[in-house]
Every structure is written in structure tokens, then in C-alpha cells.
């Protein structure tokens, strides 16, 4: 057993240890520090290499006129890339389109997700099977999901057209993806189909934390199912709803892959999201400086949305704040 009292300062003095005692512990601490650093080094390298460095490098690149994938010396343009972006009508059109996509898809996912969560929470026989089926769309890769819906809505051989005509709802095939507005809504639908199950599972997790006693008490007080949902379920799920909203809004604002596969941003840029616009400027046009500035502008927009949601979360009596 080691005697630790020797390393402590005299009681009541509050003074640092004597140089001799301090010197010994300093060496020990340095050794420990080095050991800790050695253990942390791999994660530091990974975090700085694949997170911090690209973030800083993108910021740095956004201040130059970089037009090649190779490194080198490029003209310094300061904030001109940012100014140029804010002056482009294409940029603002893409932002508005993305905002429309975000609000619509997140809204539908929340409404449908709530309905599915309530169904999955109900004490049904074979509930595990329903839960497994519901999670399948989310498990499907986005690229596959996009390709699937593109084929479903194809004007020549799509299953949606076939179903509509064979059911007598429509007399002929429609080119759904040839209308910019219809195409945007179809992309929203494809995103909702895929991500609703994720929202449903978040809400289901929240539902399981609500004590059943509250519902029994509400029933005694004369509340029906709708009254219980409005006065118990919704308020108690509010923190989960806000978390889901934050996550899905951020994800939806960055939408890229489903658009890349389904429409390529067309027709007539009708489905071009801000992430897709940024990708095209950076990698197709090789305006890497401008693309980097656009990436940072996306971050700003997402931060604004996140701050709004976090304020909502803080104003929540049941929230985490």
C-alpha cells in the first residue's frame, strides 16, 4: 500500500507541494500525459484528418479562385465567392426549392411517422412483424430507392401509369417527371416513403416512455382517445418531436443522392437542391473555390434552422434544457 499523504501539502496551508515532492509528481504526470497522448494520438489524427482538416481546408479554399482539383497557388478573392453566390438567381432558386422540399418532406414524415408509431405501439398480435416491415424502406439504400421511384413514375413503362390506367383513373400515361413542379413533389414523396419509418421509430421510442397510468387517469377524467392524444401524448412526445425535426430538417436540407438518381436536377432545374447545385459547381464545373463558399453558405442556413429548433427545445417544459 502506498503512502499518499507524503504528496499532499500540509493541512490548512493551501500551499503547493515542496519542490522535491512536486518534482517527483511532475515527472510522473509528464509520463502519464505522454502515455495519454500516445493513446489519444490515433483518434486525434483521425478527427483532425477527416473532420477538422477538411472543414478548415474548405474554408481556406473558399477564399481563393480554385479551378483545378490539383493544389497550387491560386488568386486570393477573399469573400468574393460568397458575394458572387448571393448575387446568383440560381442560388436563391435552389435555396427556395430546398426549403420547400425540407418543409414538405419533414412535415409529411412527422405526420405519417406519428400515425405509424401509434399503430406499432398498439398491443397487436404479431407486432414484431409489422415493426420489421416498417423499417424496410429506411434500410433500403437511397440510390436504390431513387432508381425504384424513377422506374415507378416512368412515362413509358412505369407501374404508376399502368396502375392508374388499369384502374380506370386515367385514360393515358402521364409524363410525371417531365413537369418541374410534379417532379419536385415526386422526389418529396420518395424521400417521405424512405424516411417515415425512421421518424416512426423515434416516436415509438418516445411513446414507450409515457406512463400508462396517465392515460387511465385521463379516461377517468372523461377524456376520449383524441383528448388523450392531444393532452398527454403530444406534450410528452414534444422533446422527441423536436429532436426528430432537427435531425430530419438538417438531413432534408442536404438532400442530394435521391435527386442525383431520380431527376439529375431537372427538368429545367426544377428539382435542383442547393446541395446538388453546389456539387455541380464544384465537381462538374471545377469551380472548387466557389463550391467551397457554397458549402459554407449551406452550413449557415442549416445553423439558422438548428438555432430555431434549439430555441424551441429550450422553451419546452419537458425538454432537455
Amino acid at each position: 500500500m502506498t503512502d499518499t499523504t507524503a504528496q499532499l501539502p500540509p493541512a490548512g496551508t493551501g500551499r503547493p507541494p515542496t519542490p522535491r515532492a512536486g518534482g517527483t509528481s511532475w515527472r510522473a504526470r509528464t509520463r502519464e500525459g505522454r502515455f495519454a497522448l500516445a493513446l489519444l494520438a490515433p483518434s486525434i489524427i483521425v478527427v483532425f484528418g477527416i473532420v477538422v482538416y477538411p472543414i478548415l481546408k474548405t474554408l481556406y479554399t473558399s477564399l481563393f479562385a480554385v479551378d483545378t482539383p490539383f493544389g497550387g497557388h491560386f488568386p486570393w478573392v477573399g469573400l468574393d465567392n460568397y458575394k458572387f453566390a448571393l448575387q446568383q438567381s440560381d442560388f436563391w432558386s435552389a435555396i427556395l426549392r430546398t426549403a420547400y422540399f425540407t418543409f414538405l418532406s419533414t412535415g409529411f414524415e412527422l405526420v405519417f411517422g406519428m400515425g405509424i408509431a401509434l399503430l406499432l405501439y398498439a398491443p397487436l398480435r404479431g407486432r414484431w412483424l409489422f415493426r420489421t416491415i416498417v423499417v424496410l424502406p429506411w434500410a433500403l439504400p437511397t440510390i436504390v430507392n431513387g432508381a425504384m421511384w424513377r422506374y415507378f413514375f416512368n412515362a413509358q413503362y412505369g407501374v404508376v401509369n399502368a396502375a392508374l390506367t388499369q384502374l380506370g383513373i386515367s385514360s393515358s400515361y402521364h409524363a410525371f417527371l417531365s413537369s418541374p413542379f410534379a417532379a419536385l413533389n415526386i422526389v418529396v414523396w420518395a424521400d417521405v416513403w424512405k424516411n417515415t419509418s425512421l421518424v416512426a421509430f423515434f416516436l415509438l421510442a418516445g411513446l414507450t416512455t409515457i406512463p400508462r397510468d396517465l392515460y387511465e387517469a385521463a379516461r377517468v377524467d372523461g377524456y376520449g382517445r383524441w383528448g388523450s392524444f392531444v393532452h398527454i401524448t403530444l406534450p410528452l412526445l414534444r422533446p422527441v418531436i423536436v429532436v426528430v425535426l432537427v435531425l430530419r430538417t438538417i438531413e432534408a436540407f442536404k438532400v442530394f443522392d435521391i435527386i442525383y438518381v431520380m431527376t439529375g436536377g431537372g427538368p429545367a432545374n426544377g428539382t435542383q437542391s442547393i446541395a446538388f447545385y453546389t456539387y455541380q459547381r464544384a465537381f462538374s464545373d471545377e469551380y472548387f473555390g466557389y463550391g467551397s463558399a457554397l458549402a459554407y453558405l449551406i452550413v449557415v442556413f442549416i445553423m439558422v434552422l438548428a438555432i430555431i429548433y434549439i430555441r424551441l427545445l429550450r422553451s419546452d417544459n419537458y425538454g432537455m434544457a
Partner: protein
Amino acid sequence: MPGEQKRTTRRGFITTTATASMGLYLAACGGSSSSSSSAGGASSSAATSSAAATSSASGPVTLNNLFQQQAGYSAADLAGMTKLFEQANPNIKVNNTLVAYEALHDKIVAAAPAGTYDVVLGDCIWPAEFGSKGIVQDISSEVKTLPTSQIFPGALVMADYKNKYYGMPWILDTKYMYANGSMLKKAGVSPSSLTTWDGVVTALKQIKAKGLVKYPWLGSWSQAEAVVCDYAQLLGAFGGKFLDASGKPAFQSGGGLKALEFMKMMLDQGLADPASTSSLEEDVLKAFAQGKIAMNLNWTFQLAASLDPKQSQVSKDNVMILRTPAGTAGGPAPGCNGGQPVMITHGTKHPKEAWEFVKFITSQNVQNQYVADSLPIWSASYDDPAVIKKAGKQLVSVAKTQLPNMILRPQVANYNAASQALQVQIQDALLGKKSPQDALNSAASAFSSQGPPA
């Protein structure tokens, strides 16, 4: 005191971390600079020869190549050519990665700094961009060792930018007109009337009037390079030009304007399917093979797929491949140059082996063996009985007349940005959001635009 110890450790940790990150950052910046210097054109040949010497001396070599899985040679054809190459060069192993055409350009650009690929399949619109930015190598000296006079001029020009070859022509393609012979017969249309676009419109109206199909034409007019290819073919037929002699946009008037007005008329009159604005060449091929349309423009690959009973419901006898029509009788009828060169990247460590591979797959002997989806670049092949037998008389006879006469899309370094603007403006006109004149004026401005700050 434990608190004191904690503070000291934390400060030390932060200092160490900041130093480490700064070191990493500076090291990375240094890396960029050095890659820049190696990207310079002057050091190219020296790097090439030293790398060649290194790779030759170090034994077996693996080439990593990037190709497309779409129009042109099929994946099976490429695999066959590669196998032949590996048999002839046992010291060289070849790994081919295939991506969709739409992903090809961006993957080449993104992989360039890392030198991931040795040989890449390009497009005839990219030599200006890739050559001027040092993404691919100038291989003029290698190409000139070959009998280039025996190659179709339209093929050679696809790899040429400012009198330098940034690749070797491999896929020689253009858009032909395909027609469903059964529908033509039922509507009383003679194939000989399809030599002009006026004749085509008359035929489409007859087919529509007979009720054979609701929309007899489907264009690949999606927001992609495909719509520019169809537009280029019509622009050429109506006597237009993309750029004037001084390099300024010239497509917003004359033949260029007529071409877009013609496309819009096809949609307005119900001759072209409204789905055209969301269709690519693959969609057009499927519609033709299912007998849902009477006519369309497409690359060579549509012929083999349409003749394959597993893929097509149209009987072999009714699949017709015709020369692209002229704007007016006796006028020009150029096909869009859809050639694709194979290029050697600047980052390759095996330029000598890469050239051997490029030379092999573009050789007349190898190309003559794989003619189902793409015809050889060598003009003499078109008189070779074995090639005619494999490719079919119908295709070879049409190709012989159309391949010497092709229209090239503009060879400008900012082609992608300019093309994207043109695609959107063409679609705006086709969807009735703008008049063809306004749309082309906007596209012309985008061609001249300087883009972001430089």
C-alpha cells in the same frame, strides 16, 4: 491541487493538440503544392519517362482504369478486350471500373489528385478541360506513331485540343435515326421520304393519324448532355453553328434557333412524347424496343439491343437504322459526334503500360472483333467482310455515309458549365417557360460568362 494538476494537463493537451493540428494542416498544404508542381505541363514528359523506367524495372504492373457502362462498347466487350490484352502482356494486370456516363466526368476529376486511375474513358467534349488543367497527358507523340491517316477524321478530332492529342479515339459513334418498319408500312410511309426532317414530320403525322401510337417520337431531351447531342444534330441539319469564327456563341440565331423551334414544334403538335424532357437514351431505347414509339435518334447501341429478342418486342425485320435526316433536301445532315477517346491520366505511375493498353484496345485488329455496339475508328474496317458480317450490312452501310460527316460540340475549357446552362435553357423552351429565342439568348450569355471570381 487535483484541480491544479487537471488544469496543467488540459493546457498541455490543448497546446499539443493545436501544434499537432497545425503541423498536419501545414503538411497537407505542402502536399498540395508539391502535387501542383507535378501537375505542370513542363514536367510531364520527364515524369512520364522516369515513371515508365521505374514501372518497367519493377516487374508486374497493375493498371486501374475507369470506363462507362452505357452506350458504346458493352461491359462484356471491354472484358473481352482486356482479357486479350492480359494474354498478350502477362506482366500487366488490368482492373476496370465501370460507372454510368453521368458519373464519369466527376469521378475522373475527383480521382485526379490521388492518381487513382491510369487510363480513363473520356468524351469528345472534355479534352479542352482535361488537357488545359493537366488532368490527362498530352500523348501526341505516341498517337503520331500510329497510321493516323487511316483513322476517320471525325474520330481523330475528338481527342484534339489546340493541335495536341489528349487521348486516343476508341468509341466512334454518332446518332442515327431508328424507325419501326411495321409502323411505317401500316401508315404508308416510304423510308426514302425520311431523308429530310420535313419528311420525318409528315411521316410522324401519318403514324399519329392512323392511331398506331399516341406519340410517335421520343427524344432523349432530359436535363443532361443527351439533350445537347440531339440539339447539336438538328442544329447541324439546319445549317447552324455553335460558335462563330471568333469563338463567340452563334447558336442563338439561324440553324441553332431553327433546331430548338423544331423540337418545340414536335412537342406542341403531339408528335414527340412529353416524356422526352425526362428521358435519356436508355429510356428511348426501351420505348422503341417495346414498340411504343415509331422513330427516334440514338447511338449505335440501340441497334444491337433492338435486334435482341430478349430485350425487344420489335421483330428483327422491322428494326430500321437510317441516316440522320437533313434540314432541307440536299442540305447537310451531320450526326452529332459522340466519340469517346481513352486518355492516360497525369497521375499514372505506369504511363508506358497505360499506352500499351490504349494502343491495344484501339487497334484495328481488336476493334474489328467487337463491332456489335460500336464500330472501329479505322476507315478500312468498313470494307472488311468480317466486320460487315458481324456488324450487319445495314449498320455498316449507314455508318459509312454518316461517320465522315459529323458535328462536334464546342471544344471550350468551360464546356460543362456552358452545356449545363444550354440544357436548362433548352428545357425552359421545351416546357414553354421561355420562347426558343429568349432561351438561346440566355444560353449564349452563359457561354460567354466568366463564372465565379477568378
